[in-house]
């Protein structure tokens, strides 16, 4: 649910990074935060455990520029990936405008990817959303590691509908902005359809 304010001439969109534990969601936001000009970003808020696992969410507000005289603001959120935080994940999805699914490319994380994607679909549908109708992109992260699944294979298993996908090494920033741009584009094009 984007929020368009004609009075302050702003439009706000909510983008959620979803995916299994340790796949690199928080790392994506940290990199975006690091590489954005101070005047374009707010604080990066991380509600995390002492071991830096996301406990509730990370939040990063971005104002990248104007479109048609409206300030476009993106509110980026990550969910906690660990299985037992299911209740919190559901809450973060409320009012989402676009989803980035961050998959962990490592062979031994395939099960976790599949499970998390399933969890995403269920949580969305409980709130009346349909993943197939929502702006949605996939990021294949950790491409720098040795034991990874080839992209073709990842696409076969995780991306049967052929949504935009991006290879990434979030720790080095590779593919991070490409992914953000990919989802931002879909979200903004959706606005065009609906207003």
């Amino acid at each position: 649910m984007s929020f368009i304010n004609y009075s302050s001439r702003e439009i706000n969109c909510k983008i959620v990074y979803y995916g299994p534990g340790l796949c690199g969601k928080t790392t994506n936001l940290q990199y975006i935060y690091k590489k954005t000009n101070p005047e374009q970003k707010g604080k990066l808020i991380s509600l995390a455990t002492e071991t830096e696992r996301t406990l509730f969410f990370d939040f990063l507000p971005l104002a990248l520029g104007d479109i048609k005289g409206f300030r476009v603001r993106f509110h980026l959120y990550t969910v906690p990936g660990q299985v037992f935080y299911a209740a919190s994940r559901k809450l973060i999805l409320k009012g989402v405008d676009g989803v980035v699914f961050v998959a962990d490319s490592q062979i031994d994380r395939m099960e976790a990817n599949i499970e998390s994607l399933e969890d995403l679909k269920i949580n969305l549908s409980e709130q009346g959303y349909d993943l197939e109708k929502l702006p949605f992109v996939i990021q294949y992260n950790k491409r720098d590691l040795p034991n990874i699944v080839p992209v073709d294979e990842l696409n076969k298993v995780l991306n049967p509908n052929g949504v935009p996908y991006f290879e990434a090494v979030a720790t080095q920033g590779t593919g991070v902005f490409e992914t953000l741009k990919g989802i931002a584009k879909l979200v903004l094009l959706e606005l065009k359809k609906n207003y």
Partner: protein
Amino acid sequence: MTNTAINLVMYEDEFKKIDEELQRLYQQSNAKLVFLVDKNGQLIAIAGETHNVDTTSLASLTAGNIAATGGMARLLGEKEFSLIYNEGERDNVHISLVGQWVILVVVFDQRSSLGLVRLRVKKSSEVLARIFDEIHQKAESAKKEGKIEESPFAEITDEDIDKLFR
């Protein structure tokens, strides 16, 4: 923009009304800061001592707070907890729901009191709820009639979007 959600679209008139009500609440409750957030964490309007306050972060955490207590409420078989109150050494925070859409937050110190804040919040909530009902009714009927207001976004181009990422 998704199957179920109605997008919140706010025009000048309504914004003015909301702003006036917030100013009134700010004055009458002797608060430091009064603001409205939608349930997704987006700041709608604010009144009071806003300098040095990270309002965007506050808004997001407020919504997270309400979402978490709402989740707890449902687990306990309650529909929703309509109020959260945090007491600090200096400042206190009173968070309450206005209708089903928005969250009203009042930050106050010893210049005010919980009793006064409660009383004024109750009055303002009624006014604000009516305004938001209007906004949503307007949005729904516009949707039904398929009326597309002179949309600034109808002509978004790829180029517009690319420009954001330069």
